[in-house]
């Protein structure tokens, strides 16, 4: 099916940058970022746990901020930088990986790609002074105690029940 200018109106051309690689694609406009990553680009780190923005397993970084890729449409991330667990780099991510392993911040590991992306986003939010629902002094830089970590990590469900270890891992990675 093509229109007068030879384009298929049921598809949209987009350019997305994933883990540093640029992809020029023609996509079904209904394609979520998560399905694009997993089904079209074979980037399978982000997981589909609920496809509804309720579990956090699909969390990725979009221009450095954590988002749920199952709730983001591909056509809305044109020219933006997507980073998945595979592409997490730098000291903070590396420390988080090591501390998750050291403190056993997972069991089955299915939610872990989302937990790690979320943790990277969380530490950046603290650096930027972004308060949470739990932060008492909205003027000061939030103090990353156990309560703040728990509050800010509660968008990422873990059914194996590794929360206590996840909190320890993030606290240790912060140093």
């Amino acid at each position, binding site marked *: 099916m093509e229109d007068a200018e030879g384009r298929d109106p049921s598809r949209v051309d987009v350019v997305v940058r994933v883990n540093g690689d640029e992809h020029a694609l023609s996509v079904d406009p209904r394609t979520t970022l998560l399905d694009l990553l997993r089904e079209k680009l074979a980037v399978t*780190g982000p997981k589909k746990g609920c496809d509804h923005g309720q579990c956090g*397993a699909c969390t990725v970084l979009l221009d450095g901020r954590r988002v749920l890729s199952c709730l983001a449409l591909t056509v809305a991330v044109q020219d933006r930088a997507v980073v998945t667990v595979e592409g997490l780099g730098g000291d903070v991510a590396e420390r988080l990986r090591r501390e998750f392993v050291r403190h056993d911040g997972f069991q*089955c590991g*299915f939610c872990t790609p989302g937990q*790690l992306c979320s943790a990277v986003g969380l530490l950046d939010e603290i650096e930027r002074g972004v308060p949470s629902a739990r932060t008492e002094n909205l003027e000061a830089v939030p103090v990353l105690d156990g309560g703040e970590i728990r509050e800010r990590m509660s968008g990422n469900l873990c059914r194996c*029940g590794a929360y206590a270890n996840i909190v320890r891992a993030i606290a240790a990675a912060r140093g």
Partner: protein
Amino acid sequence: MTPRVAGPRVDGWDKVTGAARYAADHSFDGPVHCWPVSSTIAKGRVVSIDTSAALAVPGVVAVLWHANAPRLHTPTADPMSAVLVKPAELAVLQSDGVAYHGQLVAAVLADSLEAARHAAGLLVVEYEQLPHDAELRPGARLRVAPPSPGLDPPEQTIGNPAAALAGAEVTIDARYTTPAEHHNPIEPHATVAAWQDGGVVLYDANQGAHLIQGVIAGMFDLPRDRVRVVSAHVGGGFGAKGPQAVAVLAVMATRMLGRPVKVTLSRQQMFALVGYRSPTVQRVRLGADRAGRLAAVIHEVVAQTSAIHDFCEPAAVLTRTMYAAPHRHTTHRLARLDVPTPFMLRAPGAAPGMFALESAVDELAVVCGLDPVELRIRNEPAADPDTGLPYSSRNLVRCLREGARAFGWRPPPRRDGHRLVGSGVAASAHPSHTFPSTAQLRLHPDGRCTVALGATDIGNGARTVLTAITAEAMAMPPERIDVLIGDSSLPLAAPAGASAGTASWGSAIVDAARRLRAQLTELGDRPLPPDGLTALGQTLGDLAGTPTGAQTAKYAFGAQFAEVCVDIDSGEVRVTRLLGVFAAGKILSPHTARSQLLGGMTMGLSMALHEESVLDSRFGDFVNGDLAGYHIATCADVPDIEVGWIDETDDQVNALGAKGIGELGIVGTAAAIANAVHHATGIRVRDLPIHPHRILEGRP
């Protein structure tokens, strides 16, 4: 890529880099996406499906329903795994009958996920609807549950409990209820299947590759070796990932189309299709003297099942072994309803049953004016009350004493503004099984050793614990062990279930190591042959009895202590401390064992405070069927849980001296929390979950 770091969990680095691949992460070229379609009535039959609009959607390849689905054979299973196979659930699209809301009635196959999903919404299903009954209510028609391996006999009377109760100085008579609860592993059920060379390859999310292989081979009339099931990493199971219709559907579709097929259940579909813990109504009656010594225990359970499969939540089974009451009566009755089929969920029977029993024991302690730790110690049996056999080991009392010491038992209840703080205790227990398994060891000339078997990592740390077992059995450093699991082409192994995986797999490895060491002795000073040496080991599991030949009762035990903080204005309960001390034989891999117990306790906390699947009897299905409606504990709900264990030597339980721990941690947690709520507030909550309204309704 960062170099692999040696972690305490051998596949840990794969899990923090995204390298660990789960079922739906796999793809064959040009897959067809399958979108299953669920029934919107609770009882009746599918008269017809108008597929024309769906088939007109660009990219749609086919619509499968009972009128065009190929006929399949009835699944078969060996006696050990028969309990895990639900034939009527697996007979997907095999008849026009609808037995519950949410049952699969069709599947759309398309070149893209978007097209499949869109077309599924265009199917017009015409039903003939029959009146249904989906409510577990007082007066429901009940029958005695049929016997099954986890529930045999369903009813049992020892001594004269009625007379003992009538003559008791102190009695408790209380009714406890637990709601339907769903497994909700974060990984949904998924299968990627490709028909190749007259056979089929499946990447499948399951708790036992060989179990799935056997079912698929039987249903599609294939020799076992033409079915290969690969399950390298599985995103949690908790009992929901036995053989499921989704795998059957994938194989059916790939055989029909000659193209690879990928199917994943939506989170919403999982609420009807893959099992749940039945709601229970339990009446517990205790009769004791004023010193708290039990004379009579009566535990009566009512649960529900579906119209097409019998499964009874065996909630009174552990009651038969817990305490030294000479007079006991336990029953399980079942209501057959037009509801989705309930099934085993982490610690089936034990988790809801021990909520009731351990709450009742706490109530008895209150009436007797005794410390609940002391009351339990007074009722410690010398031998298993159920069978009369000696225990292979039983250290509940040590767990209670050690836990009480570590917890600082028992601080008095206190008030902190509008918050009331209290603490509670409950016992944990779980049977220790070993199932038939085999394992192959290969010692290579370069000094490495490979262990291969169809074991499964569902989060249990299989690769890590099997590395530790092999290293010890071969007297080699763990760095030189390579573990191959998660594939039905490897030696036959038991599934990861009933807390028996590690015991079963490890016993087979110990046997293989014994054979391999014998070969090494024979070899003497000569070098290893170029292919190395191999040995196949096996265990017959429980069928072979205990290592020393003595008959024993085999259980792991534990004690859990909880501190709660109850907001008396809002009714919110928060767990501020949770401590568990367990006695589970030899702890083979402390790092992953601690996590499993921690995970069980976390799920127990979630069961106590959050989880409840609400069934609307008008429609016959769960109305809170997603993760926004069905609350599992989040990070903010869970305190820094303390987990410990005592040194326990047990040369009777199995060749490893180790008891299963996958389920032990969830048993007793909910009672410890409910007992703490009572200690804090004086309000006895007998109905889970302990939502705020139950506190508010209980206030004086």
